[in-house]
Structures are given as structure tokens and as C-alpha cells.
């Protein structure tokens, strides 16, 4: 769907994006994470054809955005991080205006607007003035606006910023629904955990450089090379501790009140063998799991602790 090759953007002597390479597969939710000033908005503006790249290319559906931005406007729906609305319009008029900017026929608009307002759960506000909407509602309205021409690719720059927890959950649900409708979504945030649960792929950028890219699990594996395993036996805690102490791949063993944690440096096969040994030793196990790393810590680690 989208491929970024050697993308760079310079503002005078300052390099906002430096030799960025990315690939976004079809129908995925792609998280674009980085601290403030990492180059996310600049990259997204270049993707949307709102900013000229200093070098490199952004290819969407086989066409280069940097060479022909106008041709790709129909394929892209863009929602900026900061946006305004025409306060003196009603919600339906606001949508109608943007339908007009895509030259959608007058007769097609009412049904299309109703449908989009339903997706973003704003049908009940159709005749309300945009001015009277809450921040979350305005965000959803802007999302509906970006869908007015039925684009294949949605570029959403921090769509959840400034929203309360309930509005964030609603926004996530809408995005999942859009993914199911076949849309490819690129979403940025400076908070990794916010994107982790809904994104199929994530890339972390910092100071204009791509730091890491992949699924959340892959990124965690890349960053936290040693896995933390947590075992909760029903009984025989001391026998379990003794068995684990004898294992060469086990390190940093910690005994808690009800469970035990340790670092494991082996492969998945070696981990399976360890579990088999415990079971053969007839130690009753209630829980055996790989402990998830703290996403905030990972983010701080890869971005050099510059999250703001």
C-alpha cells in the first residue's frame, strides 16, 4: 500500500526526517511512534502531499506522492494533529462542504453523510452547530470528514490527543471498524502503549531516524533480548526453585510470595523443555507465562528517554 524510500526533509540546517524507510501493508493499522519533534508530523505531511520532501520518495499504490501529490488526494484521507472546524456550519453542512470539495454529486451526499456520521456515532448531532461539539466529537467529525471520499489510506496524526479515556476507547473502536472495512490506517502517537493493542505494525522514530519497526511482540523481542518468565506453582515452591537453580539458561531468579520470576536466555524449544522438566518433576503449575515488557520503559529505552 505505502512504501517510503530514503525520505529526508531539511529545514535549513535542521534535519527533521533523515533517510527514512518504511513499508505499510494493505489493510493494516500502522502505528507511527516517536517523542515530540521526532519527525512524525513532517513525515505524515509529506505522505499527504502537504509538504515537499528534500529527497526520497513516498509510493502509494505504485504512485509517487512527491512527484504527483494531486493525483493521490483521492486515495488519502488525512487528519492533522491540530485542526480547525468551521464553527458557523452545522455538522451536516460541514460534511456537505467537504463532499463538495471532492466534487461528489449533490444527490449522493445525504446518504453518504448519514452513513459516515453513523460510523463515528454522531448521527444525533447532525443538525447541531460544529461549535457546540465537544473535543472528542470534533475529532470524530474530522475523522468522518477524512472518510468522505472513501479513501483507501487514512493518515491520522495523533487522533487521540487531548481526548478523555472514554473518547480514546471510542476512537479505537472506530479505527478497528475501519480496518475491518479494508482501510489501511497510519496512526501516530507519542505514547507507545496507546497504539500497542490495536496496531498490527509499529515503527518508532526518533530525531528523524527509524529506530525499530515490526509488530509489538517483535519490537519487544528485539529490544528486550532476555525474556522474563513467571511461574506460579500450586505448591512445592522450594522444589521448583531448586529445579530452576539447576538450569544453565535461567538467571536472576526471584522468589515472590506466590510465584517466581527469572530471566531465560534460551529459545522457544528450550523453554518448552524446561516446562516439560517441571511437569515431569510432578510440580503442580497453575500458571506459566512470559511476562510482557513495560512498553513505556521500552519506548524510553529506544528513544533515549526523551518522551515528553
Amino acid at each position, binding site marked *: 500500500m505505502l512504501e517510503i524510500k530514503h525520505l529526508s526533509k531539511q529545514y535549513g540546517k535542521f534535519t527533521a526526517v533523515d533517510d527514512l524507510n518504511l513499508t505499510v501493508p494493505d489493510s493494516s493499522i500502522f502505528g507511527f511512534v516517536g517523542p515530540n519533534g521526532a519527525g512524525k508530523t513532517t513525515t505524515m505531511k509529506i505522505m499527504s502531499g502537504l509538504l*515537499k520532501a528534500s529527497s526520497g520518495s513516498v509510493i502509494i499504490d505504485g504512485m509517487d506522492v512527491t512527484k504527483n501529490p494531486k493525483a493521490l488526494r483521492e486515495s488519502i484521507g*488525512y487528519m492533522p494533529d*491540530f485542526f480547525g472546524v*468551521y464553527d*458557523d*456550519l452545522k455538522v451536516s453542512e460541514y460534511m456537505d*462542504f467537504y463532499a*463538495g470539495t471532492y466534487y461528489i*454529486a449533490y444527490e449522493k451526499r445525504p446518504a453518504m453523510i448519514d452513513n459516515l456520521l453513523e460510523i463515528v456515532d454522531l448521527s444525533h448531532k447532525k443538525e447541531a452547530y460544529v461549535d457546540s461539539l465537544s473535543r472528542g466529537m470534533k475529532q470524530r467529525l474530522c475523522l468522518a470528514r477524512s472518510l468522505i471520499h472513501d479513501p483507501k489510506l487514512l493518515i491520522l496524526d495523533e487522533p487521540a490527543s487531548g481526548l478523555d479515556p472514554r473518547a480514546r476507547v471510542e476512537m479505537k473502536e472506530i479505527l478497528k471498524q475501519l480496518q475491518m472495512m479494508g482501510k489501511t490506517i497510519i496512526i501516530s502517537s507519542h505514547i507507545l502503549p496507546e497504539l500497542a493493542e490495536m496496531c498490527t505494525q509499529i515503527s518508532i522514530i526518533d530525531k528523524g531516524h527509524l529506530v525499530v519497526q515490526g509488530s509489538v511482540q517483535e519490537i519487544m523481542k528485539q529490544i528486550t533480548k532476555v525474556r522474563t518468565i513467571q511461574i506460579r506453582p500450586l505448591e512445592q515452591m522450594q522444589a521448583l526453585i531448586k529445579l530452576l537453580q539447576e538450569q544453565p539458561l535461567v538467571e536472576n531468579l526471584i522468589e515472590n510470595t506466590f510465584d517466581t520470576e527469572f530471566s531465560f536466555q534460551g529459545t522457544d524449544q528450550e523453554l518448552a523443555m524446561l516446562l516439560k522438566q517441571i511437569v515431569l518433576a510432578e510440580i503442580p503449575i497453575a500458571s506459566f507465562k512470559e511476562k510482557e515488557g513495560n512498553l513505556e520503559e521500552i519506548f524510553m529505552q529506544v528513544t533515549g528517554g526523551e518522551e515528553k
Partner: protein
Amino acid sequence: MMMNPVLRRETKTTLRNWKMFAVITVYTAVVAIGAILYIYGSMFNSYDYSFDPQSMVGMYTVLCAMQMALMLLAAPALTAGAISAERERQTLDLLLMTKMSSFSIVIGKLMSSMSMLLLLMVATLPVFSIAFYFGGVSLLALFGMMLYIVLTACMAAAVSIFFSCIFKKTMVSMVVVYLLIGGVCCFGTLIASLMVNSLYWSMYQTEPNIVLQMVLLSPNPGVGFFSVIQEQMGNNFIDMIFGNDFNQYSGVTAFFIRHYWLVNVLFDVIVICIFVSLSVYFLNPVRKKK
């Protein structure tokens, strides 16, 4: 055919707002007060304190001059924020991302401002009707004058949109446009013409080349306005500006002296084309150097 979306939205929201009706009321009131003052003035100055219908021709000139001045004031006020207000409101990026070309956006903004100015002019027609009710002014003359004023206002609007594209703040673009239209086009060209005239008299004891003066005064909407009045009313405003011996000229030069407003019209059309093109260029986000 689909109406320009920007024009459609702006027309809808402007006409919905009470401020526009307040502006129309004030504008019409100013022109009406001008007409009343003129009628009272002419009665007061008359020999037997009576109303002379012939003075209506003079009233027409005064009303047209007021209309012209008010339009030149209103055009930048309505258009200097055309693009910069979108930028200030953070809606410009959303607009530029749509299928509308920069040209359509600029034309939509220009048409929107012009439609408001036309509305103001139409609102004052009842006041103008006093002048041609008593005769001396034909409807065609009034229509011709209105066209000239609209074109001049369109020139001011095109310049305003350009400055609105390049300046981030509406106030800055408005000040620059007023300085350019009022300071340079209206007064600057007159001062330049007078300076050239006096220089020629002091150096060569003769009037400067008429073509040079015509070119110098081509941006001046006032000179064009009086040229239209001269053609309609038969007075000699332009003769006074270009000197008394212009009859020595013939051919194309003589034609343009007699119909000097054509030079202004040509200037306005060229300025509109140039500034609309520049606005389109500067509005294109991927062409702009940031």
C-alpha cells in the same frame, strides 16, 4: 454544474450572520446620507432655495465617487483574510488536501468576496435611482459605471488574496493592501505624475510625454473613474489631468486619452491575472519553500 464549494459555504455562512446585514445597512445608510446631504447642499446654494433637477447629474457623480471609495475600502476588508483566516483557523491544510485545485480555492474566495461587494452595490441602487429618476443619467451609464467599480474592486480583492496567501496574519495583509492600493495606486501615482510634470517643466519647459503620464497613472483608479464620468457627463476632468493641448494627439494615443478608463481596465485585468496566478502558486503546498 456544481457550484464552487468555497463560494457556496462562504455565501451560506455570511448571509446567515447578522453582521453582514449590519454592514449592508450601514453601507446603504452612508450612501443615502451622502445623497441627502448633496440634495440639501444644492438647495441651500441655489438662487431661490429650490431644488434643481439638473443638479442630479452632480449627485450621480458624488454617489459614484462614494461607491468607488467605499468599494476600495470594503474589498480588502472582505478578502485580506481569505487564506490567512483559513490558516489561523487551522482549516487550510484540510482544504488543500481535498480534490479542489489551488486555482479553484482562490477563485472561490475571490467570487465569494465579489458577490458580497455586488450585494452591497445592489443594496444602494434605490439611492442611485433618485439620480436617474430626474433624468440626465441613463441606466446604461449607471451599469457601465458599476462595471468599472466592480472591476476595480476585483483588482483590489485579487491583490488582497495574494497578500493573504503570503502573510500568516490577516491584519498584516490588510495593512499592506491598504498601503498598496491607497498609498501607491491612488496617491503615489498622482504624486509621481506631478513630480514628473514639474521635472519636465523645470528641465525642458514643456509637458512630459503624454504616454509616460498615461502609463504612470494607469494604476490610479480615481483617474479611470473620472474618465468614465467625463465620457458619461461630458465634463473635462481628464483634460485637466493631462493638460489642455491633448488635442494635438491623434490615432491610438488620442483614442486612449478620450477613453482613458480603458487603460485602467487593462491595468486591472493584468493585475488580476498576475495576482491570481501568484496566489495559486503560493497556495500550492508542495511548491512552497518552508
